[in-house]
């Protein structure tokens, strides 16, 4: 979903606190943002989206860039929040079980479409953490390799290697027939 108006105008209005501008900005990123945090295994994706949007509003004065840069910035925030969420889940799991979790895979499937025929949380376990970040940012968030490189703080070549290997693993798992 696009903003529909010139981005600088919407950004200026959002900085001044115009509700309509924020509604447009949020509507343009809400779906992929919520999908990304849900695919990353957030227990409560809506709560995590709320935290991302709050940080977005608090930092809008410091943002400089175009619409693509805005999307990248939103997912930078979301990515950091996801990592914080995962660390918190690990601490809770460690306190409960007194041992490290078996893998970094998403522990839940909150936000997953009920009509999905593939057990994606299980399917994504075959990927390493960085591969999963890249695949999800590219597939779910719909970002380019360059945007993902900025979000993860890596070079574009590294991102391409990660996505290449991730696709190979998913292809191999597809042959094994891991379905729901």
């Amino acid at each position, binding site marked *: 979903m696009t903003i529909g108006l010139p981005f600088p105008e919407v950004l200026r209005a959002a900085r001044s*606190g115009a*509700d309509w501008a*924020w*509604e447009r*900005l*949020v*509507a343009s990123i*809400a*779906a*992929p943002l*919520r*999908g*990304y945090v*849900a*695919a990353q295994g957030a227990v409560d994706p809506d709560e995590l*989206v*709320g935290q991302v*949007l*709050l940080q*977005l*509003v*608090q930092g809008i004065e410091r943002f400089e860039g175009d619409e693509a840069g805005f999307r990248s910035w939103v997912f930078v925030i979301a990515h950091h929040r996801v990592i914080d969420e995962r660390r918190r889940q690990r601490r809770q799991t460690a306190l409960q079980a007194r041992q490290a979790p078996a893998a970094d895979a998403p522990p839940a499937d909150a*936000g*997953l*479409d009920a009509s*999905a*025929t*593939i057990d*994606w949380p299980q399917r994504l376990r075959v990927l*390493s953490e*960085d*591969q999963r970040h890249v*695949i999800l940012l*590219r*597939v*779910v968030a*719909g970002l380019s*390799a360059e945007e993902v490189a900025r979000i993860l703080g*890596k070079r574009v070549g*590294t991102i*391409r*290697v*990660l*996505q*290449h*290997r991730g*696709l*190979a693993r*998913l*292809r191999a798992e*597809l042959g094994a027939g891991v379905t729901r």
Partner: protein
Amino acid sequence: MTLFDGDGGEMGKDHGIDADQADQLLSGRVPAGRDDLAPLASDLASLSAAYVREVDPIDARLWAARAVAQARLTPSDKGDLAATPASNADRPARQASGLPKRRTAVLESILAFLTTTAGKVVAAGALVAATTTGGLAATGNLPGQDDGPERVITQSVPVDDDTVDVADADTTELEDQAELDDQGEDCDAPDVAEADDDADEVEADEVEADDDADDQGCDPAAVAPTAVVTPEVEAPEVESEDLESDDDTDEVEADDDHEVEAPEVESEDEHDATDDHADEPDDSSDDSGSESESD
């Protein structure tokens, strides 16, 4: 983080997917001429469809409104408000802790109360109470501070001992001489003289005092010698005060019990006057007795 993400086992293998084909797969499309990748492309498309769902515009509006409201009202992660002045040169930054603010509020409420009339009255009363208590404590007169239960009881019980008579004379002389002048009959000197007569052991000086008292009614000068004499008597001031205003003092002092102590008292302190007038007859003592004693 290594360049290859620690997945060296896949190095050198040819998966048959180049960069362009990977981009097409990740966008859910099947690369041209690669039908073998169609299942993978379908799976990736289902991955996107599984998590990315269209958000209701109302939900998006609510999300935006909530984020804006929270940003305006809640502090950020570092404890500062989202909208803060650029400089804190005018005053220090606000503390995140609420304790000083609450303490300030309590102090302000107390000061506001003290500015009112009721507050001033309460403060004045507290000051008087504190001063009184402090004064009593400094002099050791607080109840239970130095006094035993006996003294408290003694102060409340009417006393009619022998010691009271002498103490009465003592305090009467020392504290309220003018009162004796007015009362006349309440003077102690005649009473002491009566006791002396009954004892049949009257000395000359005592007789002088008796005659002087008889003639002059209640001469303060005649009272003085007897009043000064109280060294051996235990006479708490409290007890004498109780009897000082008692009109029945004469009756009490006229008891036979006085026969014993009155001569002893006078014999100790009035030896000078007694010696001087010991040989004088009673008649001469009527004239000069009070004078010599008053000296």
